[in-house]
């Protein structure tokens, strides 16, 4: 069932860093700096290795100052009306950056959709390899003819 994931170590590391940030903040809600440091390294690792993170993780990290957004401790969450639509507004308490999310029950994130699951897209993953091998064969044929 558990297929071989490419950067398993890195994903484990990201997971650990995210948990560590939570752990530090749970121990002492004042210690925002260290949690921020962990989130910052997490962000840079995922940037460096080009790993996509789940929206639920991304939405709990401030885009500007990388602090972990926990409602009541490092962030405020309000329901506001904006142009006739209800939005969830998350505001980082340390730098003041706001994020707005539409409350649309019909909207589905890409990660929530069925196509995004790894099991449902083995064909697309295999096809480039097949093409590459075909190209290689072609090249070999060419070299033979020469």
């Amino acid at each position, binding site marked *: 069932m558990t297929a071989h994931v490419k950067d398993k170590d890195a994903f484990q590391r990201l997971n650990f860093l995210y948990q*560590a940030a939570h752990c*530090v903040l749970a121990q002492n809600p*004042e210690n925002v*700096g260290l949690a921020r440091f962990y989130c910052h390294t997490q962000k840079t690792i995922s940037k*460096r*290795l080009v790993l996509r993170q789940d929206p639920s993780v991304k939405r709990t990290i401030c885009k500007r*100052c990388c602090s972990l957004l926990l409602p009541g401790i490092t962030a405020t969450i309000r329901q506001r009306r904006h142009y006739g639509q209800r939005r969830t507004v998350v505001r980082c308490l340390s730098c003041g950056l706001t994020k707005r999310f539409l409350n649309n029950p019909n909207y589905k994130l890409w990660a929530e959709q069925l196509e995004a699951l790894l099991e449902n897209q083995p064909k697309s993953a295999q096809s480039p390899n097949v093409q590459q091998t075909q190209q290689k064969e072609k090249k070999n044929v060419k070299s033979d003819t020469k």
Partner: protein
Amino acid sequence: MEDAIYKTLPSAEAKELNIQVLVMEFLGDDAVLLSCPQGPKESEAFVSAFLKRCLPGLREEVIQERLNRKAVILEHSIKQKKKQKRKRRKGLSAKEKRQLRLFEIKPEQQRYDLFLPLHNLWKQYIRDLCNGLRADTQPQMIQTKLLKADLHGAFVTVKKSKCPTYVGLSGIILQETKHIFKIITKDDKLKAVPKCNTVFSVEVDGFISYIYGSRFQLRSSERSAKKFKMKGSIDL
């Protein structure tokens, strides 16, 4: 209006007329002129004071210089607004980060017992990473895993160092920067130990591995992407 000025002015002030006429034209009423001082020195003082009041943006030397050139513009000087470049960046620059002190741990929070859960979490993470850490696993495999692993929360001791005072320090790593491990010791002190010329030892479930700090001088986020060479000259 010109006639009115000539009538009120004595002929002796004909020299200063130029300036005073300018003043008149600017203000457009006689009241100022009537209160004008009549001697040459006094009028000079008056002009300088008047100009100073009317052009608050300029310094006295600048005004004098302009008077010497005889070209005085008594208009309201419009400051040209500098077009501010709009920042498209949402994030902070490195300088701003340093000024805001985003990543610093305050002295009240430097307590060893606060970070014990972090250490437990790290132990779990390492066990998970090395598939359970059985005694029969090859040490080489663990080493390669540990190279890419995260060290925040690890319990380390300084084994060797060029500086003898560092030797024997032990504690939990809180932060890892490019050149420094920030370690909290059991007596609640935050120590910054440079990686250069130091050997650390990490103990996980009976496996002891050594970290040669001089080879480790990278940011912890960069380490995950770096390829280490198997053979390296080991100094120290």
